[in-house]
């Protein structure tokens, strides 16, 4: 492999990992508050559809991005109402959101299928983008990729170095003691769920506005699930979410590159590589039980009953 090829693979790795990173960051915050939302795929699809529809009608990509975020948030409110207000089972509510989002996006989006749109163009940063190997991957991307870097930093600081981040974790670890010190569990959880929805919507809009600027039914093709898996994979640590997203991006590019290099293994077997790799890394990461317990939010998935 020559330098150019590696540079290009790194570039593609960041792009491929970006939607996963965005969605997984949102879900991480959501899960830190103790809420498991399996509706990522549905919110992503709605975000992708709304983003494309608005960008196509208004001709402004940034309106599309905003619409994707807003619709993702709206969808998450639906989940929030069921899971937080009505204390419904979170797994089931999330699944319902995914099915509903897939159906609704196909239903509303049917007028926009097959329509062309000029996608988001790269902002190439001079000088920096000429750094060998990593320059292109980090400094010749479209603005949403840069936004994902910023959001990663923001989430990192929020979780580890801010007071609201502490509150979020307190609510996720032990809602009852959070109430005891005067925090509103439901409000914190609502905000976390909405952030998750906004990020899923943004991830979807990234697909339909930058990655493959088009809308079609079910275009996320399971990426919402992969993002969910990444959060567990990262054992709820922000840095590892980034690592996981790019690792998965690299694996899904690499099996295609290997075909191009003429590796004579069945493409079907090569296609299992990213999933095998995920399982193996997961085994390596989770064998230490004590460490997992340290990072998984204690009350994850458990409804919170306000004691009156």
């Amino acid at each position, binding site marked *: 492999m020559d330098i150019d090829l590696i540079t290009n693979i790194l570039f593609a790795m960041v792009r491929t990992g970006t939607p996963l990173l965005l969605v997984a960051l949102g879900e991480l915050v959501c899960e830190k508050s103790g809420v498991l939302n399996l509706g990522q795929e*549905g919110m992503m699809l709605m975000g992708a559809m709304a983003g494309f529809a608005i960008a196509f009608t208004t001709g402004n990509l940034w309106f599309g991005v905003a619409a994707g975020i807003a619709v993702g948030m709206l969808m998450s409110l*639906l989940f929030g109402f*069921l899971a937080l207000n*009505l*204390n*419904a*089972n979170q*797994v*089931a*509510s999330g*699944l*319902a*959101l995914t*099915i*509903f*989002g*897939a*159906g*609704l996006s*196909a*239903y509303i989006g*049917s007028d926009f299928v097959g329509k062309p749109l000029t996608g988001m163009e790269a902002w190439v940063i001079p000088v920096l983008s000429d750094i060998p190997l990593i320059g292109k991957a980090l400094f010749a991307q479209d603005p949403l990729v840069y936004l994902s870097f910023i959001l990663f930093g923001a989430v990192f600081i929020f979780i580890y170095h801010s007071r609201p981040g502490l509150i979020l974790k307190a609510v996720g670890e032990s809602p009852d003691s959070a109430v005891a010190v005067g925090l509103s569990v439901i409000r914190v959880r609502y905000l976390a769920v909405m952030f998750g929805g906004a990020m899923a919507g943004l991830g979807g809009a990234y697909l339909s506005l930058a990655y493959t600027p088009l809308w079609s*039914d079910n275009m996320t093709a*399971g990426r919402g*699930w992969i993002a*969910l*898996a990444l959060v*567990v*994979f990262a054992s709820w640590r922000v840095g590892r979410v980034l690592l996981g997203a790019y690792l998965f991006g690299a694996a899904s590019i690499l099996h295609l590159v290997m075909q191009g290099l003429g590796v004579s293994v*069945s493409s*079907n*077997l090569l*296609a*299992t590589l990213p*999933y*095998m790799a*995920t*399982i193996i890394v*997961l*085994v390596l990461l*989770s*064998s*230490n*039980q004590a460490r*997992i317990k340290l990072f998984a939010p204690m009350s994850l998935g458990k409804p919170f*009953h306000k004691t*009156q």
Partner: protein
Amino acid sequence: MSLSIQRRAEESRVMSYCSPLLALVLTLITGALLFWVQGESPLGGLYTFFILPVADLYGLSELGVKAAPILLCATGLAICYRANVWNIGAEGQLLMGALIGSWAALNFLETTSSWALPLVLLTGAFAGMAWGAIPALLKNHFNTNEILTTIMLNYIALNLLLFGVHGPLKDPAGFNFPESALFTEGITLPVLMEGYRLHLGALFALLAVAVIWVVLSRTFIGFQIRVLGLDSSAAHYAGFREKKLVLLVLLFSGGMAGLAGVSEVTGPIGQLVPTVSPGYGYSAIIVAFLGRLHPVGILLASLLMALVYMGSEMGQIEMGLPLALGGLFQGVLLFYLLACDFLILYRIRWQRADTNAVASEA
């Protein structure tokens, strides 16, 4: 006047039966509204969607054909979820059952022995069990999260199936197209009625429902599973072998899904094709929740789910309605059910805003 919400002292039995019905009625009303938005007659739409598909014996038998694999997977999932084991992998377990079962079937193409079919079915079920054992062993020995491993194993199983059907199991006389040879009569699941497609797999599904009903309500294993699901530390305290139970429920679930897979290829499909399952394993997750993990509940839920699928086909044929309506209905139904379940634990009352009234009621 204002609404007030009160927690019930105990779960309302009446509401736990009424909630699904209420959800169904709300879904039908929403459906009628959607048809109206589409410019169709609401009642005509509902009729086409929910009654026309099963208006004749053929339709009813097809309902069974569609529901059988979903129900088989859902019985296994219900047991898993009762034990708090979040198996998302029924789809992969089903595909492995279909793949390995087909491999066995293709080795019996020439045979006339009546042992061939049971052997093929067993192979398929075992393949599903083996695929289900992987996340169990990983969870027990490496503490991996089963949601994640089962999702990954679904993708791996799908690619293995594609590998098989494009490679070693391809019909040698099939011009290189990705299908296996057609299975011979001896290794095809018998149909229950001549001229209809309803096959033995539907009976397997009913049997599985009976089995989990007995296991859950009448056996010590069932009791252990329930305790494990409610409170894992209590299970630990009571000396239950938690790891053994995790393995057990995943083996059962994998076996049922594997059986569903091999029943599809030896039943209505009759050969191995790349698209054995249009997502039965995922539908089964919804069915398990819709049926609130209760044997009878999932039986009804699987029939309802199958009906929605068939209804969306019928809506397209008869009225040119968009396909997406089917998915919308499923999502909406699940939403309403979850919302209505609120009434099992809480009661809603109209009350006057003045505090005396509240006091006197309390």
